[in-house]
């Protein structure tokens, strides 16, 4: 049993890696996508919005396959290194693109929800645009997006197990191998890993929301 739990832990480390790397890269990329879709230069905003529609409109599982196998099938040669590291890299790229699109919409909603008067108050007080963004609107925006971001990040925890479709040996895939041999309990026990992880995140988000509770 301890051997099996050890294997499950190894699998879960893959989930954690995908989770961490996706968060680190998709948040800044999401901000860029957000600025793109809000751009006053129409062709750019149109292009970015179409891209977001495609990414949000197709299954993440399909995107994983396209990103991992697509270049090879099109005869461009696969850009991914051989072996596990290549599979992990492809998975992270697919997750980053997918989550950046979802995050970008949350950021856009946050930016648009800060009342226009806040920008104008900054302007008439002689602030520069960056000063207005960083000193006035950013914190108000962060406060507004914490709950939807929390939702999305919790979804990401569980979505990481989709990486098994391109043979990343994450926790569900590991447990499934036991199930195929007739041993069922490891598969059900994976729930505990996710529950604990999400539980910690929930506490973290709750703490952060309380931190920002001092203003309205």
């Amino acid at each position: 049993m301890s051997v099996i739990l050890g294997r499950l832990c190894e699998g879960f480390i893959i989930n954690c890696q995908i989770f961490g790397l996706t968060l680190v890269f998709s948040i800044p990329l999401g901000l860029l996508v957000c600025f793109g879709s809000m751009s006053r230069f129409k062709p750019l905003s149109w292009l970015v919005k179409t891209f977001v529609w495609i990414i949000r409109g197709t299954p993440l599982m399909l995107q994983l396959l396209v990103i991992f196998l697509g270049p090879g099938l099109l005869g461009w040669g696969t850009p991914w290194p051989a072996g596990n590291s290549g599979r992990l890299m492809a998975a992270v790229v697919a997750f980053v693109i997918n989550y950046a699109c979802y995050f970008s919409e949350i950021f856009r909603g946050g930016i648009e929800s800060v009342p226009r008067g806040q920008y104008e108050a900054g302007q008439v007080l002689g602030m520069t645009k960056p000063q207005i963004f960083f000193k006035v609107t950013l914190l108000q925006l962060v406060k507004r997006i914490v709950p939807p971001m929390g939702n999305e990040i919790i979804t990401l925890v569980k979505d990481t197990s989709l990486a098994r479709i391109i043979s990343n040996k994450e926790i569900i895939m590991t447990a499934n191998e036991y199930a195929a041999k007739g041993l069922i309990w490891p598969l059900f026990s994976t729930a505990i890993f996710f529950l604990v992880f999400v539980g910690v995140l929930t506490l973290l988000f709750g703490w952060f929301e309380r931190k920002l509770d001092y203003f309205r």
Partner: protein
Amino acid sequence: MAILEVRNIEKHFGNTQVLSDISFSLEEGQALSIIGSSGSGKTTLLRCLNFLERPDHGSIAVKGGVIFDASDPSTQSEKDIRQKRLHFGLVFQNFNLFPQYTALQNVTLARELLARERGGENRDAIVKAGRELLAQMGLADRAYHYPHQLSGGQQQRVAIARALALQPDILCFDEPTSALDPELTGEVLRVIRSLAEQKTTMIIVTHEMAFARDVADQVIFMDGGVIVEQGDPREVIDHPREERTRQFLARYTEN
């Protein structure tokens, strides 16, 4: 010499003309009230002075220097506009205080940012000045309150202190009491009245006729984007010459 000279300002939004041929001047230390019904262009005029809107025609001069001329692009560079805005302070109808800062921080923030940029004043001096302004507004004991912990009247007084902190040449009020419960308008009007007594140069867009008559040295009545009548408040409000002014004022006295 007039501290403010506004000449032939026009403003369109699409095909709608919101301001046409607005000209007036204001002497240092005087208070100007702008009255008129909603949609008459009063607020747009204030927003033009503060560069929140850009006039399509006309010019604005402060202390004899032209700071905006619609026919001269060199007066319209983005970079300079920031500096030029500082001639004016603006108090908004709905306060627009920064919710994540205390009353005192709201007052000091912009001045600290400017001082950091230009050198000069240290932080302690700015905070001290901020406290004095809050005290002047009767809010000495509210320095560490956040906006949501203050009443509307208190928030508007913080907003006035915030605008004063940058020592503008001309302080503009955009219907400063319209968003307040009736019982809270008094405290805000009292503060503005005391600023007028200290000879603060002010432009006040307001629906408070009695207040406009008592406090202002000059009144402008606007309707449909034009100045219908301007002059001494007792003349304009008590003995209007124009029919449109009479009709507007009649609606106020009926209520």
